[in-house]
């Protein structure tokens, strides 16, 4: 029977049925039987499609896994283009697979295609906003795109996110990366806060303390840096880099005896460390040229004051811009300028004069400090003895 005749027959039957009401009676009188048959049919059909579905999904999974394995290997070998191809293919078979998408995003990042990578990562973030890896990658992309607010948000998400494996370690690394970012944008206060939180959760690994100490140092929090260097030295006392760090932190804190001790140890442990050697020399000069140090006898102090005064005078002469400069506490119209003051005082600042009039020491050193500050402002940072005098002046600024 062809379709046309079947349809005609159907239409004819339908009309007749409608006229005599047969159709309605047919299915209503057999309702339980019909529903039972339909249920059985649906079950059989359902089971058949379930079987098909198992075959289909198993095949898809197998293909996806095969391509993903290749992609992951390519990614490990940093063959990013090949990895992208493999992972895109894997995604054909498991479109929403988290690992496939994440690895594809990494492959795209590897090729510098940040916008595309970000699209995948944002999608993954929507699905799992608590995922640490995704947040960290998004933070890195935001850093590269100069989106500071987003970077901070994603870094913080990463720090408090769920991580596979060693969660604490991952969180710590994320925070360290955040600190590096903050230091990069000169947000030292925020960096210090993050470092304080980080330091509170460190274990006894000296390298961790040393790294955090370095970061504290870069964040200009020398107190915490010094403390962290000391903690690191507890476990590894001969580490020259840590010794040097401790010496520098102590130097910045103007704890010059301590600085001298650690720097000497650092230079002894690593004689090629020229930077530490230079700071050590400055430290030694500071210690030698400070007349207010309690450990020196009186006669020596007078001699140091005379030498410091002479050094300052020489600096004043070598910095022509300061010849007419006056003391900041006096008006130029009523008070003599620094050169005149120095000239006037130089006749009295002798070892003999100071022994006779010890009160002159204060005045002489005040002038020395003023000269060093002024010349520093006008002629740039001093070196050698003048640098030492400037540091000494800063040490005594609070007194």
């Amino acid at each position, binding site marked *: 029977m062809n379709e046309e005749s079947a*349809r005609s027959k159907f239409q004819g039957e339908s*009309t007749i049925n409608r006229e005599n009401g047969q*159709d309605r009676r047919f299915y209503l009188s057999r309702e339980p039987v019909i529903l039972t048959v339909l249920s059985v049919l*649906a079950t059989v059909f*359902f089971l058949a499609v379930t079987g098909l*579905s198992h075959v289909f999904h198993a095949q898809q999974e197998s293909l996806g896994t095969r391509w993903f394995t290749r992609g992951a290997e390519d990614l490990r070998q940093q063959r990013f283009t090949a990895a992208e191809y493999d992972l895109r293919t894997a995604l*054909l078979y498991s479109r*929403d697979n988290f690992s496939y998408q994440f690895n594809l995003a990494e492959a795209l990042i590897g090729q510098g295609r940040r916008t595309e990578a970000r699209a995948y990562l944002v999608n993954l973030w929507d699905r799992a906003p608590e995922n640490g890896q995704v947040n960290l990658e998004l933070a890195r992309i935001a850093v590269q795109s100069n989106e500071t607010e987003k970077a901070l948000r994603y870094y913080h998400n990463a720090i408090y996110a769920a991580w596979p494996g060693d969660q604490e370690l991952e969180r710590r690394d994320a925070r360290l990366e955040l600190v590096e970012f903050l230091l990069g944008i000169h947000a030292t206060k925020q960096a210090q806060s993050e470092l304080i939180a980080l330091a509170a959760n460190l274990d006894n690994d000296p390298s961790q303390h040393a790294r955090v100490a370095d970061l504290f140092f870069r964040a200009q929090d020398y107190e915490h840096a010094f403390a962290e260097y000391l903690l690191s030295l507890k476990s590894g006392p001969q580490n020259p880099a840590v010794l040097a760090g401790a010496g520098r932190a102590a130097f910045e804190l103007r704890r010059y005896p301590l600085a001298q001790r650690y720097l000497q140890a650092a230079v002894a442990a690593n004689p090629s460390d020229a930077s530490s050697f230079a700071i050590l020399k400055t430290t030694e000069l500071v210690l030698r040229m400070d007349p207010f140090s309690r450990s020196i006898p009186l006669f020596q102090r007078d001699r140091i004051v005379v030498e410091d005064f002479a050094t300052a005078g020489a600096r004043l002469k070598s910095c022509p811009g300061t010849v007419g400069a006056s003391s900041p506490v006096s008006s130029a119209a009523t008070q003599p300028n620094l050169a005149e003051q120095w000239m006037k005082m130089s006749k009295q600042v002798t070892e003999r004069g100071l022994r006779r009039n010890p009160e002159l020491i204060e005045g002489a050193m005040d002038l020395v400090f003023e000269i060093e500050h002024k010349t520093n402002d006008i002629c740039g940072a001093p070196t050698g003895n003048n640098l030492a005098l400037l540091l000494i002046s800063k040490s005594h600024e609070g007194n």
Partner: protein
Amino acid sequence: MKETSLDILPNSQIEAPLPSRASGIASRMMMREEHFFLILSVFIGVFAALAVVSFRFAIEWCRMYLLGTGYTLSTSRLLLAPSLAGLVIAVLVIHVFPRARGSGVNQTKAALYIYDGYIPFRTAIGKFITAALAIGSGHSLGPEDPSLQIGACLASALGRRLRLSRERMRLIAPVGAAAGLAAAFNAPISAILFVIEEVIGRWTAGILGSVVLSAVSSVVVMRWFLGSEPLFRIPVVELQHPSELIAYSILGVVGGLASVAFSTGIGVLRPRLKALPTWTQYFQPAVAGLLIGIIGVLGAPQVMGAGYEYMDEAMHGQFTWQMLAILAGLKIVATLLSFVSGTPGGMFAPTLFIGAMLGAAVGGAEHAFLPHLAASPGTYALVGMGVLFAGFLRAPMTSVFMVLEVSGNYSIIVPVIVANAIAYAISRGLQPTAVFDVLTRQDGMDLPSMEEQREEGILRVEDAMRSSTGPVLEAADSVDHAFQQADAKDLDVLLIRLTPSGWSSLAREELESMVKEGKGGLTLDSVLANRQTPYLHPDHPLDSALRYVDRWPLVPVVSRADFSKLVGVISQDDVLKRYREFGES
């Protein structure tokens, strides 16, 4: 009979009433039938979903075995797979499954309006095989419309087996269609709306209940097998600033023009290819496949197949706007080739593809040149889908809900409505006939156009009524007074306002005979007893007046706020005159 307003006057009171026992049995029977049909709708949903899931597997297997399992495809496969599959499809369509040709939407409409719900079961098998081969081999077609037709076929077969009444048979195909489309789209609301908007064309509780049940049961079963993930991974979408609406309006304009180009291409090319000698039909799908393969080899394999994965990539900014524009253009070409060659397959997926690419391209270009105006291209891709859906398929309601359902984000409703409305208006302005209607007319059928029906003006009572020239009498007036009024003003019929409510009428002859019988001193109220005249309101459809005007020579038209206030009157002549004028215009 107390009240006789059309609102409260059931048809049964006008027609001859059934004896009460028979009426009760008929009512119970009808109720049982309603329940049975609803249960049947659930089964239809389940069967349709199982068929659609199998169809999806079949497409994937065809793709894997014909095009390969890699992300990029080899040149030989790109050229051979669609062209050889095209040959096989042509033979199958010409010799075995002639009704499998086309998308399936019009065939389902034809079943509803011409064949009393009859769709041969063989069509489902043919559609399943040929569409899976076509889409799997890379022809630029989608699985949604075939799914719709497969669902309708299954429902029709079931209805025939159960010997459903003709009335039910006509409804069962759309019920199956909704189930098939819902399973294919994973979007039940859009499927229901599309079937109501484009296939059935009217909202009634009986249809809606069945369609909803079948669509929902279908989606539940489909998700059991394929998961509940939406069709696309939707990026974060939001309207950042009202000025963005300008950018979306531009998208609406571009989408509207693209829709016109696309539908014009189909309208022009399809009849020309059909007019070619019969033997060429064996090669048309193969040639189309070869040309599409060449497009793939030349660097745009994305246009092959349904292309959902690429729409997803477009939404996530994986292409430059230039590439997106090229893909949109090539997809139009590829889909035209596939569709006009008679290859079985759907238009939904290509429409969404073109819309997504076009949307993302417009968004990307705007973002590049006017960064303050446009946000992420992903949002534009999503809106673009709706734009093409509105402009090309001319389903404005479905287009809006489709985007909302797919995105699950209602914050973009304003841009979607703005862009879709513009695209729809442009498309309607430049291409008065919708693409589905063009196709049916090319096939020699005259199915009702849902769009034309929506736009059709409805005549209402107010269009035909006239002012009452005669006086309105009160119930307390005497028969003598009424007769004098009729006589003085030469009126054939007089309207009487009853108390406390209601209207009645009396013919002049009746009044004359009452006067002769000596009833002239009686009040009208007493002589009329329970005789009431039905009344109408000005906003009633004019068709409603036809029920009364043959039995009452003058029907009062009263205000809805005050039933005693006469707004006008209407007679059979008035109605017929208005219809005659409407027909002439």
